C-alpha cells in the first residue's frame, strides 16, 4: 500500500465514534458490565443445580451462603423417605433439640460442621451439599437462580420493548418527516396529544384488562415508548430531506419507500442508537414498576421488579432479599446510562469539534 492511498483513507463516522467511545472509560465499563450481566443471566442457571421455581420446605429465607444440614427420619417404616433441609440459623429451633441446652446444641452443630452425623429424637442430621450463595426466598427458592431468570425477563423485556419502540418510532418519524406538509402536521399533532396522556396509567390498564402475558407486557411498553423516538427521527429527516443526496435520489426516479428505507433511515441511525440505549433502562424501569405493583410478570416467573417487591415485603427480617436484586438492577441501570451518555458524546456531531 502506498502512502498516498493511506492518506486518502478517511475515517467513517462510525469508526470515529467508536474511537471516541473507546476513550470514554465509564462508557466502556458500562458496555462490558452490561454484557457480563447479560451473560451471567443467560449462562448462569446451567451452573446452579436448582430450578427457579423449586421450593424447599423448611428452607425458607436462609441466609446467603450459610451452612445447610439435611434432616432424615431415623426409623422410616411407613412413610416415603424424605429429606428436609435446615439452615444453620434455624437449628436452635429444631424440635429435636428442644430439651437440650444452648451449649449442647452448639456442640452438636460443631459435630455436624465436621461432617459427622448426629442423632436426635426421631431424626438423623448430616451436613448437606446444598449451598445457596445468595440464600433462599420466603418459599425456599434459591435466590441466585431466581435472580438470573429474573434478569433474563427484565433484560429481555427491556431489549424487546425497545425494539418495538424503534420499529414504530423510526417508521412513524421518517414517514412524517419525509412527507411533510399537512400529513406531517397531522401526524405530529397526534404525537403531541398522546404525549399529554398519562401513559403509565394506560399500560397499567392494559395489563389489568388483557390477559397477563409477557408478550403483551413488552408490546404495551414498546407502544408507549415510541413517541420520543418518532420526534427525534422526524426532526432529523426533515433536516436531511433537502440535502443533495436525497435530491439526487429523487431525480434518479427512486420511489418514496426506497428513499426512506435506503437513504434516510440509515442516516438517522446514530441518534436512534443513542436514544435506544437510553430507552432500555427506562423500559426496564417501567417493567419493574409494573411488576412491583403486581401487574407485570406473574409468579412463579420472576423479574427483577418481582424480586424487589418480594424483598421489600420482608425487608426487616431478610434484607438481603431486597439488597441483591436491587443492587444488580441498579448496576444494570448504571451501566446502560453510562453507555448511553458515552454514545451520545461519541455520536453527537457537536462533540466532534473539541
Amino acid at each position, binding site marked *: 500500500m502506498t502512502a498516498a492511498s493511506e492518506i486518502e483513507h478517511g475515517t467513517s463516522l462510525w469508526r470515529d465514534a467508536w474511537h471516541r467511545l473507546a476513550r470514554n472509560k465509564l462508557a466502556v465499563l458500562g458496555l462490558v458490565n452490561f454484557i457480563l450481566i447479560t451473560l451471567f443471566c443467560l449462562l448462569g442457571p446451567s451452573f446452579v443445580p436448582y430450578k427457579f421455581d423449586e421450593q424447599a420446605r423448611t428452607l425458607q429465607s436462609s441466609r446467603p451462603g450459610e451452612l445447610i444440614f439435611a434432616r432424615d427420619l431415623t426409623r422410616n417404616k411407613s412413610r416415603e423417605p424424605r429429606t428436609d433441609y435446615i439452615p444453620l440459623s434455624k437449628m436452635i429451633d429444631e424440635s429435636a433439640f428442644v430439651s437440650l441446652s444452648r451449649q449442647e446444641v452448639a456442640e452438636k452443630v460443631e459435630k455436624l460442621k465436621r461432617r459427622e452425623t448426629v442423632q436426635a429424637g426421631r431424626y438423623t442430621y448430616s451436613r448437606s451439599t446444598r449451598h445457596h450463595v445468595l440464600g433462599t426466598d420466603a418459599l425456599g427458592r434459591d435466590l441466585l437462580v431466581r435472580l438470573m431468570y429474573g434478569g433474563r425477563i427484565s433484560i429481555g423485556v427491556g431489549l424487546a420493548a425497545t425494539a418495538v419502540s424503534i420499529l414504530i418510532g423510526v417508521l412513524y418519524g421518517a414517514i412524517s418527516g419525509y412527507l411533510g406538509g399537512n400529513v406531517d402536521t397531522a401526524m405530529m399533532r397526534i404525537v403531541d*396529544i398522546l404525549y*399529554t396522556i398519562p401513559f403509565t396509567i394506560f399500560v397499567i390498564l392494559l395489563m389489568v384488562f388483557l390477559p397477563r402475558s409477557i408478550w403483551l407486557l413488552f408490546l404495551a411498553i414498546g407502544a408507549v415508548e415510541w413517541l420520543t423516538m418518532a420526534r427525534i427521527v422526524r426532526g432529523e429527516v426533515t433536516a436531511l430531506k433537502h440535502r443533495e443526496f436525497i435530491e439526487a435520489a429523487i431525480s434518479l426516479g427512486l420511489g418514496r419507500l426506497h428513499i426512506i428505507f435506503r437513504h434516510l433511515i440509515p442516516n438517522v441511525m446514530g441518534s436512534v442508537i443513542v436514544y435506544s440505549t437510553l430507552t432500555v433502562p427506562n423500559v426496564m424501569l417501567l417493567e419493574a*414498576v409494573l411488576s412491583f405493583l403486581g401487574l407485570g410478570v406473574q409468579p412463579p416467573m420472576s423479574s427483577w421488579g418481582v424480586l424487589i417487591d418480594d424483598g421489600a415485603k420482608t425487608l426487616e427480617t431478610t434484607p438481603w432479599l431486597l439488597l441483591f436484586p436491587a443492587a444488580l438492577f*441498579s448496576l444494570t*441501570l448504571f451501566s446502560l446510562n453510562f453507555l448511553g451518555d458515552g454514545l451520545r458524546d461519541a455520536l453527537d456531531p457537536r462533540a466532534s469539534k473539541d
Partner: protein
Amino acid sequence: MIKFTLQRLLQLVPVLLIVITVTFWMSKKAPGGPFSAERKVAPQVMAKMNAYYGLDKPLLQQYLLYLKNLVLRGDLGPSFTYPTESVNQVIARSFPVSLQVGSLAMLLALFIGIPLGVLAAVKKNSLADYFSMSFAMSGICLPTFVMGPILAIVFGLWLKWGNVFGLEKSGNAWLPPIFLPALTLGLFYGAYVARLTRSGMLEILNQDYIRTARAKGVGSFRVIWKHALKGGMMPVVSFLGPALAGLISGSFVVEKVFKLPGLGNEFIKGAFNRDYSLILGTVIFYAVLIVLFNLLVDIIHAWLDPRIRQ
C-alpha cells in the same frame, strides 16, 4: 397570552374525550366485572345489582349516560369498591394525600437539584461537579421502589425519625408522616433536575450576554443566580410536565411502600377490582390534572423566555 391560554384549554376537550372513550370501552370489553371477585349470588340478585348500577343497558347507552352525567353535573358515578361512597367522594378524600406528597416531592427535587446542577456547571470538571453528577446518576439508577424501602428501614425503623406506615404519627417520630415518601420521590426527580440544570446552565454560561454582564462588573454570584439561572432553567421547566406524570405513577409506588391512603392507591385498587367507575374517574382526573399542569408549564416557559410570547 389570553388567546394562547384559551387555545390550549380548547385542546383539552378532544384529549379528554379520547381518554374517556378509550378507557370506557377498554374496561367494559375486558373479561370480568366488578362483581366477579365476590362470592356467587343468585342470578336475580345479580340482575338487580346490574340494574342498580345501570350495567344492564346497552354499552352505547351506558357510555352516553356517563358522558351526560360527567358534563352536566361533574358526576363520576358510584363506586363499586366503596358502596357507600361516590367516585367523587373517593377522589376528594384520597387526592389531598397524594397532592401533599407530590408537592413536597417536587419542592425537594428543586431544592436538591437546582443548587447541585448550578454548582456542577459553574465548577465544571471539578470535584464538586463529579460529586453532583454521581449523586444525579445514583438518583436515577436507584428507582423509587428501591429507595423507598431503604429510606423506610433506615429513617423509619432504625432511627425512628419518621413514619413507615400510613399517616398516623408513630411514637416519637419528628418528621411529618409524608416526609419519607416525598423524599423518596424527591431524590429521584432531584437527580433529573440536577442533570438538566447543569446542561442548561453550561449552555447559558457560554452566551454573550453573560460575558457582557461579567464585563460590566456584575458580581459572579449575581451573574449566576440572577442572569444565568433564568435561562438555564428552561430544560428544567420543560421537564416539569413529564415530571408530574412521573410523580403520579411514582405515587403508585410510594403509596404502596409507605401504605398511604392516596389516590394512586385507589387507582390500583380500582384496577384490580375491575371497578369501572373508579378507574374511569381517576383516569379522567389524572388526565385533567396533567393537561392543566402542562398548560401552566407553557405559561411559565413564556414568562421565562420572552421569545416564545410572540
